[in-house]
């Protein structure tokens, strides 16, 4: 794989010229400017109270308000990092185990027949409601507080990875398989040289979903009473003190949104690094 990655660099025809980046930046600046105008404009026009829609300056002020432990933005970043850690542990566990289960399902048709309907059904059913029980349960066992959040994140990662990776492992076409057979390849070779690489784009589709989902999972895990750290806790605090400090709730939610987008962006970036063989889109 290594040499194709290095050599593919010259072939990348989709590279962004600095000019394009400049235009994009300008577009975002204009977009944010517009949002700000609409925000403050509607606030003034409809006399929306601060607790419903704070001034943008109040949100900015909330970020910089000093606390005994340092400025608010620093606290929020620390909490966000804690949530990111919980989510990352869960994401790793969920994607590795999801991948292994998908490989198992691919090899053993009967196992798949038995379990796959439940894996699919899990996507249409709100089992995430077990979150409070996982938090209470692991808490009572004396497990570290981050573990329950990681378990929830792992759960939310696991199912999309199983479904997509299995689809990827099965996505190889008949002739590609016959080719391997014509070489008298072993099952392990077929897996390593054909099915595994064929599944990588599908894996990334799942990982992009899972990146955000694992952050959501960690945040949901932080909601029950008793949690002390994480951006989810800060959101709850923010909603409790909203009337006193109307910018703070928005600040916490902005941080949570950024966290989700960064997680997604990191997976998308890894995908661009690793999946170099795809025809660029449009």
């Amino acid at each position: 794989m290594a040499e194709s990655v290095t050599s593919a660099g010259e072939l990348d025809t989709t590279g962004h010229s600095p000019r394009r980046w400049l235009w994009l930046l300008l577009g975002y600046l204009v977009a944010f400017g517009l949002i700000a105008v609409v925000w403050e404009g509607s606030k003034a026009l409809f006399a929306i109270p601060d607790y419903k829609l704070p001034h943008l300056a109040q949100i900015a002020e909330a970020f910089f308000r000093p606390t005994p432990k340092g400025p608010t933005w620093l606290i929020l970043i620390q909490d966000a990092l804690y949530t990111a850690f919980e989510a990352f542990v869960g994401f790793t566990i969920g994607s590795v185990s999801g991948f292994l289960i998908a490989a198992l399902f691919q090899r053993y048709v009967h196992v798949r027949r038995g379990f796959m309907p439940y894996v699919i059904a899990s996507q249409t059913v709100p089992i995430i409601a077990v979150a409070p029980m996982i938090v209470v349960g692991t808490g009572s066992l004396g497990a570290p507080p981050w573990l329950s959040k990681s378990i929830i994140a792992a759960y939310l990662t696991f199912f999309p990875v199983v479904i997509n990776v299995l689809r990827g492992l099965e996505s190889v076409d008949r002739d590609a398989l016959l080719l391997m057979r014509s070489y008298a390849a072993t099952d392990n070779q077929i897996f390593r040289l054909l099915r595994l690489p064929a599944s990588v784009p599908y894996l990334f589709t799942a990982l992009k979903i899972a990146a955000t989902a694992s952050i959501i999972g960690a945040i949901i895990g932080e909601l029950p009473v008793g949690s002390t750290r994480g951006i989810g806790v800060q959101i709850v605090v923010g909603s409790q003190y909203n009337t006193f400090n109307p910018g703070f709730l928005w600040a916490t939610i902005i941080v949570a949104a950024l966290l989700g987008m960064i997680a997604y962006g990191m997976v998308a970036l890894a995908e661009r690094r690793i999946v170099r063989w795809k025809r660029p889109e449009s």
Partner: protein
Amino acid sequence: MAASDAPLPENGPTRQAFWNRPWVAPLLVFVLVLASWELLVMIFQPPTFLLPSPSLIWQSLAGQFLALMGYGFNTFMEALGGFVIGCGLGLLTAMLVARSKWLSDLLLPFAIASNSVPIVAMAPIAIVWFGIGPWSKVAIVAVMCFFPTMVSTVRGLTSASPDAIALMNSYAASNWQIFTKLRVPSALPFVFNALKICTAVSMIGAIVAEFFGGAVNYLGIYIKTQASILKTPDAWAAIVVACFYGLAFYFAIVLLERWLMPWHRHREQH
């Protein structure tokens, strides 16, 4: 590989056929999992609040079935309300946006990026805006449903091939005819994919939004409360009810899909 070596598999009505029926293995797994769960709880006797046995959950479910179904219905109505508003607005927006390539190029990236935002974390803001009652949940669900529906519908409406459009043009079809006879039918599979995803999203959104606060006769609040006072069997029973509503909602949409898209039924099988 070995299977394909056999030239003439004799597929008579033998014992093999029984095991190959689609429901046999899942049913077996269901029974085995429940039985071993029950057995493990019996042997190791973990505290009930940690892992209740299936029979205990069943007792809890049977004991307050109507109440739980009622809570479930309340939560489902939140989900349904948000689903209708979110998906409806998503469809309308998509129809407007898809008319102009410039507009869809401009807006789609933002709509796609919204996928990476944990929208449910905004529930406290919805509570501030719409109160602690059901409307805040409806609002969150609506936002969660809006973006996937809009993105899929725009993709669907623009999915007709240039040749198919050229064919319509060769009949001198009007824009309205192209829209109703070509764009809408080719968009339907995309739309229904989004709607099916949104059924799950809406139930999850409603329940998780309830974790942030609300009245007690809703599933999310009930689960959170019972879990925190260690009445775990009750919480599990509530989850069974939530799954029931989730599946029923999903299959209602599947039925609607089959009714509106009879030509797609065969491809569903895979």
